[in-house]
Structure formats: structure tokens, C-alpha cells
């Protein structure tokens, strides 16, 4: 069906918002592939364009003020950009579905859970009422809601935050989508519930073979969940690499800073590294590299010329004038890192295994 096993190919996507404040280049020329059955993590701070990227994929950009200016979004061999709205609707919710960050606001408070779940299967799979109802119960059971049959007719306010997020996942998975986009699925949840939801997504992914795009600002979440990671900043892809590679040998100063600014619960640290300054105003980007004003590696060229997208290994790219140098340095740091540190981490994990 699709070329080279990719479920999704995004080529040079540009989504701009035309506001009074000027043109906001929320997504400015990003490209990536997602293989069938794989999980892609998109990491970035607020305003980096990670959510807009995914809204673009399912063509949900509010127009006006937003518009997909250019680019190709090829989903399973079809260019989503070229499809008429009716066709996109058939894909949305059925073949590509989304889980949003806030389960409190993405469920309709006036509709019973059953009705909200049945809507999808009746529309996309042509189920009749009783089929759809049974399917809704089955889905709630799949996502681990106890006593699903009696709870299916409840209203959203009768469910806790974690339960609502499970309902959202049940809804997203009820048509067995080929691609699941999870936009900050655990940000509003407590850690123990976050662990439940992440385990659930992992389990369902293994069972159904769905491809997943996981959008988050939490590097800890992507570390355990994804195969590939894209790091976004100011609407650009700053780094793109397989997960292990990205965490061990980051080739971009921004990724490096981000990794260092997360406190690691397994190790003792002194003062936390901080990236100075603030994320840029995307409507008024400085010339040259948008990260240059906050970058510790920045030189004169960075404020003048836009950096190249350097290929470091076959699957590792970095947007930086000094990508090779940063990459070499972090690989060297990894090799020099005392073996005891990672051994300690493993020992700690074994402790947890004991329980």
C-alpha cells in the first residue's frame, strides 16, 4: 500500500498563522517519516509548533487565522493535503485519531459516555445502536475501566481525570486507527495515573500494531515510549534521531540543554543547568538561528546565517552550524562517563524489580 513501509510522510510542512501581530510561522518547513508500528516522540516547549504540526496532519488548523502554506502530508500513500474535506473527515477519527491533553474539556459534559463512544463507530464503521453500544463497553473494558457495563451510561463528571483520559483513549482506539496522535496525553495527570496510561498505550500498541505520535514536553515520558524523537524549537526541527542516540549523543545545543535541565531522580546533582532566556516570539524571530540568543555554543555566524540541517548518522540530523562538533563532544562525554553511574542506575532499577 504505502511506499517503503511508512504510514506517514511529512514533507516541508509550513503552517502559518496570520495575526495582527504579524505572520506567526508556527511550523516552518518540517519533514519526517513514521514507519508502521513505530512510535515517534515530538518534544518541544510551548509555542515550538509541536501541536500545530499534528493538527496540520489531520487538517484541523483553524482557518483563518491559520493556513497550511505548503508541504505534503502523505498518509498511507495518499496526500492528505490534496483530499477534499469530506475525504479527510473519513480519515479523521477512523484511520488517524487523536488523544488530547485535557480530558476535562475534550469530552462533552452533556453527553453520556456511551453516546460519545457510539458516535464514532456508528459514523465510521456503520454499526447499529446495539452493536455500537456493545462495542463501547468492550472498548472501556480494553482500557481498564472496571465495571464498564454499569459505567458506560455515566456522564464525564462522574469519572476521575485518569478515567476520563482512559475514555478518551477508548474513543480514539474504537475504530482501530492506523495512526494514533497523543498530544500531551499525561500532562494533566498524576504520576501514578500517568504510569497507568503510558503502560496502557504501550500495551494497546503492541496488541493492535498502531503507529503512535507522542507529543510531550516531558523527556522522561518519551525516553521509555518512543523509537524516534523529533525536537522542535520555534517551528523548526532542531534535532531528529533514534531515541537512544538522541539521549546519549545529542547533536544540538538545544537538545543538550533540555536534557541537562531535567533533574534526574536517579542521581545526585548540584545546581541544575538552566537554559538562559525565554523561548522566542515566533512572530518576530531573530535573523539566523532562532536559538542563538540562548545558546552557549553560539558564535557570530549563528546570529547572521540560518544553520544547516546536518546529517550526523544515517538517521540522526541536527539543525546547527556546529552540529558535528556538538555531536562528537557529547559522544565523547558518553564514552567518558563512569561506568558506575549507569551500573548504579541498573542497580536501582533492579531494586524496583524486586518489589
Amino acid at each position, binding site marked *: 500500500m504505502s511506499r517503503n513501509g511508512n504510514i506517514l510522510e511529512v514533507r516541508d510542512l509550513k503552517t502559518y498563522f496570520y495575526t495582527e501581530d504579524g505572520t506567526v510561522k508556527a511550523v516552518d518547513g518540517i519533514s519526517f517519516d513514521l514507519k508502521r508500528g513505530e512510535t515517534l516522540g515530538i518534544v518541544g516547549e510551548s509555542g515550538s509548533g509541536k501541536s500545530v504540526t499534528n493538527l496540520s496532519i489531520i487538517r484541523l488548523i483553524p482557518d483563518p487565522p491559520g493556513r497550511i502554506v505548503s508541504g505534503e502530508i502523505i498518509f498511507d500513500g495518499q496526500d492528505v493535503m490534496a483530499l477534499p474535506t469530506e475525504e479527510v473527515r473519513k480519515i479523521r477519527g477512523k484511520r488517524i485519531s487523536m488523544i488530547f491533553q485535557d480530558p476535562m474539556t475534550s469530552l462533552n459534559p452533556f453527553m453520556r459516555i456511551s453516546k460519545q463512544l457510539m458516535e464514532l463507530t456508528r459514523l465510521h464503521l456503520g454499526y447499529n445502536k446495539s452493536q455500537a453500544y456493545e462495542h463501547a463497553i468492550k472498548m472501556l473494558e480494553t482500557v481498564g475501566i472496571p465495571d464498564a457495563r454499569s459505567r458506560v451510561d455515566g456522564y464525564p463528571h462522574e469519572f*476521575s481525570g485518569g478515567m476520563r483520559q482512559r475514555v478518551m483513549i477508548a474513543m480514539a482506539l474504537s475504530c482501530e486507527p492506523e495512526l494514533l496522535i497523543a498530544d500531551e496525553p499525561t500532562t494533566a495527570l498524576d504520576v501514578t495515573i500517568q504510569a497507568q496510561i503510558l*503502560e496502557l498505550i504501550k500495551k494497546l500498541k503492541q496488541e493492535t500494531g498502531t503507529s503512535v505520535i507522542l507529543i510531550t514536553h516531558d523527556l522522561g515520558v518519551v525516553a521509555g515510549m518512543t523509537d524516534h524523537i523529533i525536537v522542535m524549537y520555534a517551528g523548526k526541527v532542531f534535532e531528529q534521531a533514534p531515541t*537512544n542516540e538522541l539521549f546519549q549523543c545529542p547533536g544540538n545545543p538545544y537538545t543538550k540543554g533540555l536534557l541537562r535541565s531535567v533533574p534526574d531522580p536517579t542521581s545526585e546533582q*548540584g545546581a541544575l543547568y538552566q537554559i538562559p532566556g525565554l523561548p522566542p516570539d515566533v512572530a518576530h524571530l531573530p535573523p539566523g538561528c532562532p536559538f542563538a540568543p540562548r545558546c552557549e555554543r553560539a558564535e557570530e555566524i549563528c546570529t547572521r546565517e540560518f544553520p544547516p540541517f546536518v546529517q550526523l548518522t544515517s538517521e540522526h540530523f541536527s539543525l546547527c552550524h556546529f552540529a558535528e562538533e556538538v555531536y562528537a563532544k557529547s559522544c565523547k562525554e558518553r564514552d567518558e562517563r563512569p561506568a558506575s553511574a*549507569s551500573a548504579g542506575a541498573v542497580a536501582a532499577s533492579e531494586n*524496583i524489580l524486586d*518489589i
Partner: protein
Amino acid sequence: MSTEPASRNQQQPPPLELGEEREPLIAIRDLKVHFDLGGGTAIDNLLGGSAVHKVVKAVDGVTLDIYPGETLGLVGESGCGKSTLGRAILRLTEPTSGHVLYHGQDLAHLSESEMREQRKNLQMIFQDPYASLNPRMTVGQIIGEPIETFHSNLAAEQSPKWLKALGVVAGVAAGGFLGFKYLMRYSVPYFNSLNASIGGWVGWLVGGLVFLLITAIGLLISLALGYLVYHLLVRKTLRIGMALLLGLVGWFGAGAINKYLESRGKEIAEDLTILRVFLSSLFFVGGWLLAYKIKPSLRTFGGKIDQEVQKLMETVGLSKRFLRRYPHEFSGGQRQRIGIARALAVDPDFIVADEPISALDVSIQAQIMNLMEKLQRAKNLTYLFISHDLRAIRHVSDRVAVMYLGKLVELADAKIIYDEPLMPYTKALISAVPVPDPAVEATRKRIVLEGDVPSPINPPSGCRFHTRCPYMIEACKEVVPPLAEIKPNHFAACIRISPEEPYIERVAPGDAPGLRDAQRVIAT
């Protein structure tokens, strides 16, 4: 910062004992915050309300010491009562019972005004920097407001009691003199004429009543004057003073005008009182408005508060240029800095930081945590750092307290509690934290707890965690586990562990070595 807590921990007395060598800054004793949801009365039954009386036990008997200069991290899931505990310490939520001892005072039982005095030592940083700053005030006003309040309070505090008393006495005396003068002038002739015109005992009665009325008015005037003098001398509250002052000017001005007109041979104001009331109320309102107008300019004129504010802004890493800007012009991180500056404005020694970084981006979180640590060192602050982010808590805290459904379940040194949690809930909580390292994530196993946190309205009996605990035995449903010292300075609330058997994995199935201690505690 990283090595300090361990060494400090060595000489640390057990936090649950008072009067040890290290005095706690804040000592919380059996603090409870219950929210009564009502229900259960006959009327409720009649109107279809709840048939049972419902009480949310948000904080249910917390005992905790916070030592000077430390950061105590308070973690727990949403709804566990950690924010309520933080707010109850500062009396932003009224505690139901218990004590919060601070410098020998019980904050939980202070009067409103006494607590207000204490608030300059005890401050709070709020979670949501968007909601906690007044959108209609400039940054200068937001940060300056506590200084201003503090200064007027300071003036009140610094002026000795005898001066206050003198102010009141002088005011009442002056008022009394004026009141008496006018009383004599108007009421006595009025009394006489009434008495004369009506005659008999009725005349005496009516005249007496009028006399009493006028006396009362005179007394009120003298009290008002006393209040004015007190304010002008002692509280320096500009607004009320200005208004009263101009009101008086109006009152006497009317007399002066009348006299002037009289001297020119024109009797214009037949009823002088009406003119007086009219002029004085006009001047009163005018004075009030004028005070409003000049108050901000007084501040910039003196410039003292602005200087203070600018100093504070620099301390927290904001540019001085932003003094006249409004909150909406700032990013989340900058707003949180404004919130911190506001808390620091009164030079407190204890700050409750309620989820101060949760609403911020990752790179900004690091900035705020570093700023708070820097300020702690510079100003010797003590923090209660409330967060659900265990990574942040681990990073900033010296000691960590874990809360579950209104109770503390574990308390220990930050490093120790992460490396070796004893209580099953803490174990699950810590194993649930995602680690930003794929290698670690691939090998480690999470303890995934079943279900959600139960409702605090009807918390489970016995150990509140028993409904989700993988190590639950029958006794857990009945016995409320006390927070016991399992290892030196490591407290945990679980009956299945004891100082002899601290590791729950090694305890024989069904055994509860902590039970003897628990029963002893419950018996008391």
C-alpha cells in the same frame, strides 16, 4: 546544596519530638482541615439533599517539623491535601483543629489581625502565575503593595503605645471640647426655649430628650476627631485623614463664610447647619478622592518603594524597565518571578511554594528552581515546596514528606526516600517517575498501582492506602498506621514494617511487625 542535607541530617533530632537541640521554625501538631459539605439533616432529606453528613477530610492529623533554612518537599497526588496543608499553615484556609507553632505562637489560633502581622514573615508563592497576579495592576504596584502595607504597619508598630494612647486621648479631648462648646451654645438655649414653650413635665421630658440627642451627636463628633488624630499621628492612613481634615475645613469654612457675609451686613445663611453639612460633606468626598489621586504619586515622589521594588526585580532576574508593565505582558516564567518578588517584598523567613513550577516550560522550570535556591542561600529562607513533580522535589528538597489522602505516609531525607522508599505507596510513586534515559527506562519496571485515589469524603478505614496496596493484609483495613521512625530519621506509616524489619519485601506474608507499635500508639 547536594551534600549539605546528609551532614545536617546527622545531628538532626527526630522531627516528632519537641524541645530537642534543633528548634523547628514551624512545628505542625495534629493539624486537621475538614470541609463540611452538609447533608444528613431532616431538611436535606426533605429537599433531596445528601442523606449522609459529608465531611471532606482534606488534611487529617498532620504532625511535622520544618527546620530553619531547609527545603521540605511535600509530594502527593492531586486531592491528597498537600495544597490544603500549605494553605492551612498560613491560615489561607482555616484549620479545623491542631496547632502550627511559629516562634512560640500558635498560628492556628491567632486572631485575624495578629495573623496579618505574622504574614510578613510567612509568605506564599502560588501555582498559577496567570491567576495570582492582579491584571489591572502594574508590576511596580503588585510588588510594591506588600511593602506599602508593611510600612504603614511598621509605623503603627514602631510608634510606642503611649503615643498611640496620647493620640486617642488628644483626639477625644479636642473633639470633646468642640462638642461641648457647641452643645452649650445650641442645646442649652434650645432646651430652655422648649421647656419654656411647652411647659410642665412634658417640656422637661422633650427638652431632656433633645438634650440627650445633641449630647450623643457631640460625642460622635469628638470620637470622629479622636479617630482622625489617631490616624494622622499613628497609622498615617492618608485617605481617611485627608477626607476628615477637609471635612472639618468645610465645617469651619462655612462658619467663616457666614461671618464674612455677616460683617458685610448680609445675613445670607439663615440656617448655618445646612450650609455646614453641605460644605463639609463636599470637602470630605473631595479629600477622599484627592487622597486617591495623590497616593500613587506620593509613592513615586518619595521613590522609596519604587527603589525597593526595582531592587527586588533585579534580585529575581527581571529587568527594572518592566516596572510600569502589566502582568499580561509577561511570559509564565517571568510572572512566576513577579510572584516570587512579591513574596520576598516583606522579607519573610518562611515561604510556602505551592506548585511553583508546574505551569512552566521545562527550560523555565530549571530557571525558577535555581532562582529559589539562590534566594534561599542569600536570605536564609525556609521553604515548604509543594509539588506533584517528584523530579523537581528530589532536586530542591533537603527532606521529603509524602502525603496520601490527608495523612503523611513517609518522611525522610530527599536522597534516602528516593533511593530506599519504605512505604509501599512511596515505592509506587517513585517507580512511576519517568527517567529521561532510555537505557534506564528499558530495564526498570514500574509498579503500576490499580485504580485512582479514593475519595477523601469517605476515606478507606485503617490504612488509607490499603485499597491499592499490593502488600495489603486484613489488619491494614482496621489499624491506622502511625508515622513511626523505622530507620534513623526515616519515618513511614505502615504496620507491615518495623525498625527490626524495615523492608517490606522481606517480611513474611501476612506478618505485620509494626502492629505492636501501632496498637500502642492507637491506645494512647
